[in-house]
């Protein structure tokens, strides 16, 4: 893999530096107290002071969020295949899949505790619930939008349903599946953090959600922002990993998708 050119990494670095410097200067100039809006330097200070603790929390959230995301990828992909088999199945079940998209996870989270008990299982379930729908919806749309000309070709050669599914529809849906996975990757982090609010056992010290709750209780606004920053970085890391995965997968399947 060749190293990214300055054209790639320079714009985000410039915007980061500019926005951070602006916020720092503006908050200093207007003397907005730190308990209302902490300065970037204070957040960095909290990040460094509690670095180890936050890193461990991030690692824990990464584990549950990735487990939830993996479950979403597998079960969401399977669900989309089942739904594409027949319009009747689609009509019968697809409307209810929308439930996963609209479910207010904050309201459902306490029930997850009753169903799965306190601990990582409930947190993973929360990550799964909020991240599965984009995978179902995108994959399904990919499965259904196979090129009509290729469909005809398969029909002419008397390919069976299974062959058409395996050789035409599923490979053709790969780009959409990966788009779904990209959307789901950030949602899984959110789902895990909300799950931690109600179900984290702190046996291993707790995840980002617990760190946020404690920092709020201790009125440490700087630390709240530091924890949120770690969550954002985790989401970014997931996104990057899915991108790497999708490049690899697409290269195997065809020349590759458009770069972004």
């Amino acid at each position, binding site marked *: 893999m060749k190293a990214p050119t300055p054209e790639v990494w320079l714009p985000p670095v410039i915007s980061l530096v500019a926005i951070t410097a602006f916020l720092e200067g503006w908050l200093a100039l207007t003397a907005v107290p730190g308990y209302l809006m902490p300065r970037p330097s204070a957040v960095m200070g909290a990040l460094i002071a509690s670095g180890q603790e936050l890193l461990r929390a991030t690692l824990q959230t990464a584990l549950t969020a990735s487990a939830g995301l993996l479950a979403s990828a597998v079960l969401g992909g399977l669900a989309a295949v089942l739904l594409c088999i027949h319009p009747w199945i689609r009509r019968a079940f697809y409307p209810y899949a929308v439930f996963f998209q609209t479910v207010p996870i904050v309201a459902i989270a306490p029930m997850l*505790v*009753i169903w799965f008990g306190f601990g990582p299982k409930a947190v993973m379930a929360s990550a799964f619930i909020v991240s599965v729908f984009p995978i179902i919806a995108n994959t399904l749309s990919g499965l259904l939008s196979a090129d009509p000309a290729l469909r005809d070709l398969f029909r002419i050669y008397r390919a069976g349903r299974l062959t058409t599914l395996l050789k035409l529809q599923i490979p053709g849906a790969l780009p959409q599946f990966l788009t779904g996975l990209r959307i789901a990757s950030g949602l899984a982090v959110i789902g895990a953090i909300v799950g931690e609010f109600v179900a984290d056992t702190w046996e291993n010290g707790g995840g980002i959600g*617990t760190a946020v709750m404690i920092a709020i209780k*201790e009125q440490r606004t700087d630390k709240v922002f530091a924890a949120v920053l770690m969550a954002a970085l985790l989401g970014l890391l997931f996104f990057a990993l899915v991108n790497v995965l999708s490049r690899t997968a697409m290269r195997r399947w065809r020349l590759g998708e458009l770069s972004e």
Partner: protein
Amino acid sequence: MRRLPALLTIVLLALLSACSSEPDGGSNPRLTLQLNWVPEPEFGGYYAAREMGAFRDAGLDVEIRPGGPGVPVMQLVASGQATFGITSGDSLLVARERGIDVVAVFALYQSFPQGIMAHAERGLNTIADVFQGGTLAIEAGTPWHRLLEKRFGFSKIRAVPYSNNLGPFLHDPNFAQQCFITAEPIAARHAGAHPRVFPISDIGYNPYSGVIVTRREFLDQHPDKIAALIRAVRQGWQAYLADPAATNQFMHGLNPTMDLATFSDAAEIQKPLILGGNTPPQPIGGMEFARWRTLAEQLRDLGLISRVEPEKAFVNP
């Protein structure tokens, strides 16, 4: 990139509006009292004062703003978006440590209403027994959470997050949870459970609670208004303690998820927390220097605050 200035302007405006203090419209600006929870008997006296016209008679225009889970009372008061807020004594001292210059002017609960409830069937006798096994739902990051951990250790129990949901408690006989003495045990009893309640004050941690706080700046500028407000609040509480029925009915309208029976039970149970504790007796909501000092020392010993300055934390208007 051309849109960037517009975006920054929006952020600027949002921050500006968040920081500006409340407008002093006219000679009698509206005062707001920000509650830290939904309307419940712990706020009965304030609603009673408003309903009986005590605020109006004192020449005050007071708006009572209900709260809920996660409402940032201290930040709302500090930024001037609320004139008064309700919080606990320990939160006040921690806020002062963070540089928020807020002052307590009234303390409703003379005894700390926080407790731990466990199923009576477990036969636990003291709060120490709670830490011998089972699960305990508790809010992380509170001073008394730290104190309990220091005193008893959490190694034999499973500590899980506390949420405002009785389900796990009702579901699991070995489940204990933190509770507001006047709230969850009543609801658990109504649901058929037999909770045994251990007050946190049993371990010698007894901060004032249901505390009204305001900015030092407002206190310095309007001592007369604060004195008038506290007088009206006392009248409200006296009326509510004597007969809570009408106010409960009114609050039930604002918070229909709590039934009237629970309202009247809670109003009864909180009476000793409001009236008791002080020798010699003092007016409702009055505070003692020694108790603020004890609390500050406890928080200092836990490493939560660095200076013990009880004299700066409260006034009895």
